[in-house]
Structures are given as structure tokens and as C-alpha cells.
């Protein structure tokens, strides 16, 4: 059994250390004796929904974002079928915005997203930048999610879409410092990079558990020695609290 990690368009969407998320997922699976294959989807390729166990969507530069949005819209049916089949999807920053219906930049130019999640994003006048701390409840446990945000977009969630967490430090979805990210089933969107998974190993493990479940395997992962992760989280939490901006 080989777990297939599929980063979408990594040559365009690997801006804020997004490759770190791929490395972390792959390594945490390997350290548990699971076989892993990283199968990036390149521009022009078709996503085969039955050959993906966890899908990652990163952030890109503004110009590349438009380029990738077009390609991604073409893959929306395949993505939708993978999601319906229980494949987890993590979308960060620009990728998070592309989960929604559209992105309106500051000059009023509209980029259509995939519409996989009922949300939309409108660029604000000022970029929201800094360390963040978010309170997340996932699969019955509470976690402190730490990282860095850097986005001009203000994202509004549709009425049926739950935020991923509650902002303790940071700007969050819309700059109000209230909600952060979105969560619909196994689809997670967030503005938090840094990258996200190294300092939030609980989330990496959750994605891996869902990936195992998708393959019909028990969602059991051996514990790892996460002392360095623990130290990094403690430092990041302290850092975020020092620079509380909102």
C-alpha cells in the first residue's frame, strides 16, 4: 500500500514554504513505516481522482494565481469527486481563495475559483501580515494552530460553511481577527502558512488518518517523538502573543 500525496501545480503554487507541507506529510508517513509517493500535478495534466489520497493546494504570486485558477477550474469536477470519495484536501492562502467562487483584486479584476466551497474573497487596501495563533477544534480535540499570515484578500464564508478556528492573535479571514479558515468535511482552507504542517503536526496526522481511511485502512498512527515540534510551537505561541496586533 502506497499513500499518494498530490500537490497541485507546485511549480506555481509553492510560495510560502508550501513544499514544507509536502515534506512533513511524506516524512510523518514514512517514519511510521508507510510507503509514500509524492505525485505532483503539473499544468496541463488531468487529475485522476482515484489516484490521490491527500491533496495539497498552496499559494502563488498574483500573476501565477490567475494562470493557475484557469487550470484548476478545469480540474474542479475531478477534485469534487475525490472530495466526495473522502480524500482530504488542504488549501493554503492563494489555494484557499481558489476553493471559493471568486477573487476580486484591488483593481476590481475578477478571478473565478473552483466553487468547491461556498466562499468568496475580495482584496482589501492593506496586506494582513504577521504571526498568528488560532484555536482549532478538530476531531474532538482542541489545538493551538500557529503560523504566519500574509494576504490582501478578505474572505467571507457562506452560511453553511464553518470556520476552521477562532483567532487568538492575527487578522483571520476578513481582517476582523475573529474567524480563520474554513472546514467542510475533510476540506480545510486556511491563510496560515509558515509553513503550516511542521509546527502543527496534529493537523498533518489528521490528514494522514483521513488518507488511510480513504484507502479503507484503520485510522491508526503510531505516536512520534515530537519534542522539537513542541519546542517550536511553544516558541511560536510566545512570539505571536508578544506581537498581538488586533
Amino acid at each position, binding site marked *: 500500500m502506497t499513500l499518494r500525496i498530490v500537490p497541485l501545480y507546485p511549480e506555481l503554487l*509553492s510560495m510560502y514554504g508550501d513544499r*514544507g507541507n509536502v515534506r512533513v506529510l511524506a516524512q510523518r508517513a514514512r517514519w511510521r513505516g508507510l510507503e509514500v509517493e509524492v505525485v505532483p500535478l503539473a499544468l496541463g495534466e488531468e487529475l485522476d481522482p482515484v489516484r490521490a489520497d491527500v491533496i495539497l493546494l498552496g499559494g502563488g504570486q*498574483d*500573476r501565477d494565481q490567475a494562470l493557475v485558477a484557469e487550470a484548476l477550474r478545469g480540474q474542479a469536477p475531478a477534485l469534487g469527486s475525490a472530495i466526495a470519495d473522502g480524500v482530504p484536501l488542504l488549501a493554503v492562502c492563494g489555494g484557499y481563495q481558489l476553493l471559493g467562487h471568486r477573487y476580486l483584486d484591488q483593481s476590481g479584476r475578477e478571478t473565478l475559483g473552483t466553487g468547491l466551497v461556498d466562499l468568496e474573497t475580495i482584496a482589501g487596501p492593506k496586506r494582513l501580515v504577521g504571526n498568528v495563533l488560532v484555536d482549532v477544534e478538530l476531531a474532538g480535540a482542541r489545538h493551538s494552530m500557529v503560523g*504566519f499570515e500574509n494576504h490582501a484578500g478578505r474572505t467571507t464564508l457562506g452560511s453553511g460553511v464553518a470556520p476552521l478556528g477562532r483567532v487568538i492573535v492575527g487578522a483571520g479571514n476578513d481582517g476582523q481577527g475573529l474567524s480563520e479558515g474554513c472546514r467542510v468535511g475533510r476540506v480545510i482552507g486556511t491563510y496560515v502558512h509558515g509553513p503550516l504542517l*511542521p*509546527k502543527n503536526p496534529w493537523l498533518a496526522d489528521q490528514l494522514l488518518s483521513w488518507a488511510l481511511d480513504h484507502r479503507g485502512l484503520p485510522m491508526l498512527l503510531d505516536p512520534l517523538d515530537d519534542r522539537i*515540534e513542541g*519546542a517550536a510551537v511553544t516558541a511560536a505561541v510566545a512570539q505571536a502573543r508578544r506581537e498581538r496586533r488586533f
Partner: protein
Amino acid sequence: MRIAPDYLGTLAERLEAGVVTISATNGKTTTAAMLNTILAHDTTVCRNAAGANLVSGIATTLVHCPADARVGVLEVDEAALPIVAASVRPRVMVLGNLFRDQLDRHGELELVADRWRTMVAGLDPQVTLVLGADDPAIDALAGTRGQIFRFGIDDPAVALPSRDAAADSTFCVYCGAAYHYDAMYLGHLGAYSCPRGDHQRGALDFAARAVRLDGVRGSVFRLDAPDGSSQVVLPLPGLYNVENALAAIAAAFALGVPSALASQRLAAFAAAFGRFERIAIDGREAVLLLIKNPTGANEALRAIAADLAGNQVVVALNDGVADGRDVSWIWDIDLEGLLEPAAGVICSGTRAVELELRLRYADLDDARVGRVADVETAVGAAIDATRDGGEVYVLATYTAMLEIQRALTRRGLTQPYWKTER
């Protein structure tokens, strides 16, 4: 500090041979130091200290300009360049490269490129542009201007074996199609062409050919310039410094220095602050390498890889404003396997734990990895752990490098950077 633009222009006018501005994400300090080395044989140069490259720092430099200085060499921050250019009215502008760097401060790469396009469109036609043609976004700035020198590397033998993961702009600036690369040298720098024929690297006026890299010691290449060919023996390692040398030689040529003379003068070049600077400490040698983005860090690691065996490495990551508050870029460095030969690796700086985490995921979390947050203590520990005659490789972000430099100066091991003659 608010400065009236006229005032800056008036100060700059005192420099009768004109001002050269040097801007690039990577290499501006080294290029400025190289150009200074070339020009200092003929005249006194007015130049800014490393990092004093925003409007305020440039104003200070011009105010305190030596009385007998005839030419200005100013490294200018990428975002500050349009304002500086409008007020200083340079004679020569070096536009080297644009890499992803400190995104939290500058906004995105694309934004800087846009501002540079607008700036170039509004320039006096008398200004000579020296363009890093290996970077598609820089090459495209040429437009239809007359006074242009393109520089670049033309030697597939030193190209990367595979695409650099940290590459940024690999899509045609005109139509968005993926460039075809005949050779990729550093990140997205290389010999590229758009498959739809909308853009390709322009003809090189200053080309490095027959390049021979010699580890941390330096490189040798043949320079083909408008006034003939010459051999350049560069005492600085890596292809980055080949690019920097080309930029400096082309800028000097624009001011009237023959390229063969410039090449010859570069052989005596000493490293700029934290750019492969070598310092003797207690019978050991510390090699200082400034890192600030994934492409630069990859290049630094590649340059030292062959010399790491049995030696100590210190990596110092700070997250001050000058370093970039966002440290996520360390996950884009290809250090998998590269640090394996080192006898020990010490993680240091305000984000030392983050580095340790990065190394863990590179499968390097064994007994050889340590963590000492204080940068000076970390370097001291690495020196102590090094055998006589051995080397300590210190890779540090900007403010961490400043801490190291201050500590070394305090111990009398090195002169303050701004006082050394180059």
C-alpha cells in the same frame, strides 16, 4: 526622515562622474563592493555601507560623501529604487535579478517588477541600463531603449542538473507560457525562450563562458565583452559571484573602464560583508555566508558542500525586519542530504528551534545537531569543536550576521566592515 527629492538630487550632482545604482534581490552588496574595487584605482568613490540602502541611508551617504569623491556607487533596495532613481538621477543603473525575498515587507515579486517597468519607462534616455539578462523579468525591461548592456552566463556545462525547486519566474512575462530553458544556472536565472516565440534571452554584451568553479576558493571564466575577451580570476565562489562580477564589469565599462582592466582589478577583490568572508580564529577558519532567501541559501550550500566533511556548521536564523519576519522560506531550501558530511550542525538565532525542526524533516535530527540560540555563543561552540586547521561554516541571516561581525570586531579579529578597504 523625510527628504526633499531636490535635495537628494543636488547632493548627487556634486559627483561629477555620476552615480551608479545597483539593485537586485541577490548580490547588490557584493556587486557594489566589486565595482568599488574597480573604480577605486582611479578615483575616490562615494558609497553606502552594506544594508544602508533605503532612501534615508542613501541621503546620509551623500551628505557625508568624501570631498574628493567623483563617482557614487549606491546599492539600493529594490522597493526604494524608483524613488531613489527619480531624485538621484543616476548615470548607470544596474538591475540584476528579482527573487522571492522578504515578501512580508515588499509585497510580492510581481509588484516590484511592475514598479521597475514603470520606472524604466520614465527614465531619461541618457541613462545606461545594465541588465541581468539571465532573469526573464529583468531582460524584458530592455524594451526599445538604446543604452543597454546585457550580462549573463553562457556555459551549459555549469547549468543545474535539474530544475531548481526554488525557481520563481519561469513563465513568459508576455504570454504566460512556461519558458523552455536550454540551461538553468541559479533559481530561474538561465538561458530561456518562450515556446510561442514571445520572449527569449537577449544577446549578451557581457558573457561569462568556459566557467570553472573551484569550491569555496573561487572561479575562473572567460569574459566576452564589447571591447574584447579577457580571463577573470574571481576569488569568490559560486555562480552568483560570476553574475555579480559581470554586473560590476559592465557598469565600470559604462563609466569608461576597459573590461580587461576591470577583470584584472577584480582578482584582488576581498569578500563583502558576510559573503564568503574568511576569518582566522585560533588556528581555525570561520567562513561567513549571508543567507536570506531559498535561492541564495541553495547556492551557498552547493558552494560549500564539497568542503563540509569533518567540519562544523552554524546556521543562524533571525526574524527581524531586515531578515524578513516570515521564516517559511527555510522549507524551500534543498538541504536534504547536503549537510550530511558535516561533523556537527548548530542551529542558532531567534528562530533556532524552527531550523532544528527543518533539519529533523531532512532526516538530520541525530546527535550531530545542536541548538544554541545566542549567535555568538553558537559560533564559539563551533570553533571549540573544530580541530586545528579546520573550518567552521557560518550561514546566517542579516541581523544574525551583524551580531557575529560585532562579536568578531570586539575580539579584534576583524575590522568593522565599513572601515575595511576594498
